[in-house]
């Protein structure tokens, strides 16, 4: 007994784990999976949306800044041209004039560092600014001077360069034709001031703005990004004025926007700060949040599945207990009919034994030879085995066997059952049992004991419904992969108000103590479990037909 309990526990544990695993999987699929997919979808969408909007922003920024810078440089040219074209300009200007001019320029923009005036030989003959050394210096071989004179345009910008003063600056110069030679006015601009102007003009925000020349060297650059004149990772394509490109920066591939200036071969580079903190923060926050929600969901699902698995197991156990109880109950009902059957063979035994005693008794003077005793012994033998058959059938039915799915022929099960349990009981009760079993039934995978229980329950009810004499007809048939077992009785029938309730547990019309009300409800459960159905038709006072429909499915 204990061993059996132990076995049951192990079985239960295994069942429990299987159930829990299945439930976890199902619940996860139903609740977690869509959530995860949603998160992933959202992240991807968010990423690409963010990416697109950033690109748009970078391009806008680069374009804005390049326009701004163009405008700024044009203004500076205009400042210088106003000076050189001034009719009141004395040639050559005095140094005092130059100081005044510088003041005037610096009123327009504090980017002006100095201003110089060159004669037609390229010598700076007047100068105002911080570097006194530059006075009288010959610039005629300087590349900017050479190209200014050659150029059609009246002005020229240089790239940033160190020049004589060894300090990064850029030079702008304008020329004025005077006969067959040129006068030139030149000024240096402070790149830092230009950069301040640019970035303060627009909210740079999370962008890095820098400017590179056509070789990719930094011209204007924030100090944390690089140094002026260093070569930058950005080499924009000179072919398109405004576009997106990629560069390798700190081993990362980053996307940047560039816009070429009109006035000078410079490009404004706009790119996101590397860290992307806002976005990353949001993204990782989202991920943490999702992970937390997932974790909570999983915990809920896990505990739910344990609870449900427990409930299922309990339900299974209760159901099997219920089934067993109803089985015992149906046996109890049967026993009234069948157990009495044991009395008849026992009476034969007692009677034959008495007779043999009489035969052996010399008082009666009968022939006590073997031949006269032998038939009586044979009768005793037969009677003993009749008893054994009855008890064996009862026991085999009561035993709580594990469910065993096997191929069975339904007709065999019915024949067995009728011979074993009902034939004699019915004949002495004046109820005739007719079988109409079709030969063409395929074998059915089912549990013999459970099916027998269902049949016994229904036949018991039929017997109880009949006031003798009457008849019960059991028929089988096979159509469209469904085996139908019909059990028809000529009994009292079921009243209309009861017919809806007959499959309900504990519903009974029998006297108290006679019926449990479990038989049909358990039978219904069993047949449903087999994938089948029980139908009932009844005419009050005429009879009832139960139809058990079983689909022929082979489980193995």
């Amino acid at each position: 007994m204990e061993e059996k309990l132990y076995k049951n526990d192990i079985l239960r544990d295994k069942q429990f784990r299987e159930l829990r695993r299945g439930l976890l999987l199902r619940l996860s699929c139903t609740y977690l999976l869509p959530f995860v997919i949603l998160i992933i979808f959202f992240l991807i969408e968010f990423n690409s949306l963010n990416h697109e909007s950033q690109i748009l922003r970078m391009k806008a920024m680069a374009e804005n800044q390049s326009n701004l810078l163009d405008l700024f440089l044009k203004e500076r040219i205009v400042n210088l041209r106003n000076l050189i074209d001034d009719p009141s300009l004395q040639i050559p200007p005095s140094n005092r004039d130059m100081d005044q001019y510088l003041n005037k320029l610096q009123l327009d923009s504090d980017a002006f560092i100095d201003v110089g005036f060159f004669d037609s030989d390229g010598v700076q003959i007047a100068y105002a600014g911080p570097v006194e050394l530059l006075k009288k210096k010959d610039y005629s071989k300087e590349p900017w001077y050479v190209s200014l004179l050659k150029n059609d345009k009246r002005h020229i910008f240089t790239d940033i360069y160190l020049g004589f003063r060894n300090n990064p600056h850029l030079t702008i110069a304008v020329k004025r034709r005077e006969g067959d030679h040129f006068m030139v006015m030149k000024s240096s601009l402070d790149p830092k001031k230009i950069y301040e102007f640019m970035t303060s003009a627009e909210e740079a925000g999370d962008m890095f703005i820098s400017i590179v020349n056509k070789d990719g060297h930094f011209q204007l650059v924030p100090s944390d990004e690089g140094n002026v004149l260093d070569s930058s990772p950005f080499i924009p394509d000179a072919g398109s004025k405004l576009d997106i490109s990629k560069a390798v920066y700190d081993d990362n591939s980053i996307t940047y926007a560039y816009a070429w200036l009109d006035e000078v071969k410079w490009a404004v580079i706009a790119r996101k700060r590397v860290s992307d903190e806002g976005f990353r923060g949001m993204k990782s926050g989202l991920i943490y949040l999702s992970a937390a929600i997932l974790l909570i969901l999983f915990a809920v699902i896990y505990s739910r599945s344990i609870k449900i698995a427990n409930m299922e197991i309990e339900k299974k156990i209760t159901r099997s207990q219920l089934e067993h109880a109803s089985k015992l109950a149906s046996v109890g009902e049967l026993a009234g009919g069948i157990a009495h059957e044991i009395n008849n063979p026992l009476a034969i035994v007692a009677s034959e034994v008495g007779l043999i005693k009489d035969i052996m008794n010399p008082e009666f003077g009968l022939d006590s030879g073997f031949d006269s005793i032998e038939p009586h012994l044979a009768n005793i033998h037969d009677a003993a085995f009749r008893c054994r058959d009855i008890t064996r059938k009862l026991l085999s039915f009561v035993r709580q066997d594990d469910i065993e799915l096997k191929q069975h022929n339904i007709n065999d099960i019915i024949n067995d059952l009728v011979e074993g349990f009902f034939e004699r009981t019915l004949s002495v009760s004046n109820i005739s049992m007719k079988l109409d079993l079709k030969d063409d039934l395929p074998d059915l995978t089912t549990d013999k004991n459970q099916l027998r229980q269902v049949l016994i329950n229904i036949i018991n009810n039929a017997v109880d419904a009949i006031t003798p004499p009457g008849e019960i007809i059991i028929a089988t048939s096979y159509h469209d992969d469904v085996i139908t077992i019909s059990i028809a009785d000529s009994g009292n029938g079921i009243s209309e108000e009861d017919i809806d309730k007959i499959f309900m547990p504990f519903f009974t019309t029998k006297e108290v103590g006679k019926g449990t009300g479990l038989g049909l409800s358990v039978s219904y459960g069993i047949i449903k479990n087999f994938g089948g159905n029980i139908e009932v038709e009844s005419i009050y006072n005429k009879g009832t037909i139960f139809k058990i429909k079983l689909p022929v499915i082979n489980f193995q």
Partner: protein
Amino acid sequence: MEKIKLLIVDDEVNFLLSIAKRLEIRDFAVVTAANGEQAVSAAENNKFDIALLDLKMPGMDGKQVLEILKKEHKYIEVVILTGHGSLESAVECTRLGAFGYLPKPYEFDKLMETLKDAYSARMLKKFKKDEERVSELMKIAAGSSPTGILREMKKFDDEEK
């Protein structure tokens, strides 16, 4: 001494034969019937003192046979011998006039005792009836013609059958 005339009714042939044999060697005049119909027709042809009757039988069952026998035959005593014994059926059979009710398997001594008691009861009943008859005859005899007495006696004899 005249043999006790006994009708045994049971659908178990082996049981029927063995019990018949045992009672025969104990000087009962036994007639057997394997079902209710046979029993009723046998009772029409013989005058039985006692019927030993099984209850559960195919066809006409024991209770019906009991009712018919008690209705048709004034002096017969019926002893029920059944494997499906219950208090309810015992009460009902007694109400229908059964003398005894024995469960199967039976004790032979108990059966013999019951049969003897049944026979005594039957005889007593017959004796009482006879006595009543005789005193009635005496009354008639006191005030009527000899032909009247003879007619009454003839009627009495007919009833006996």
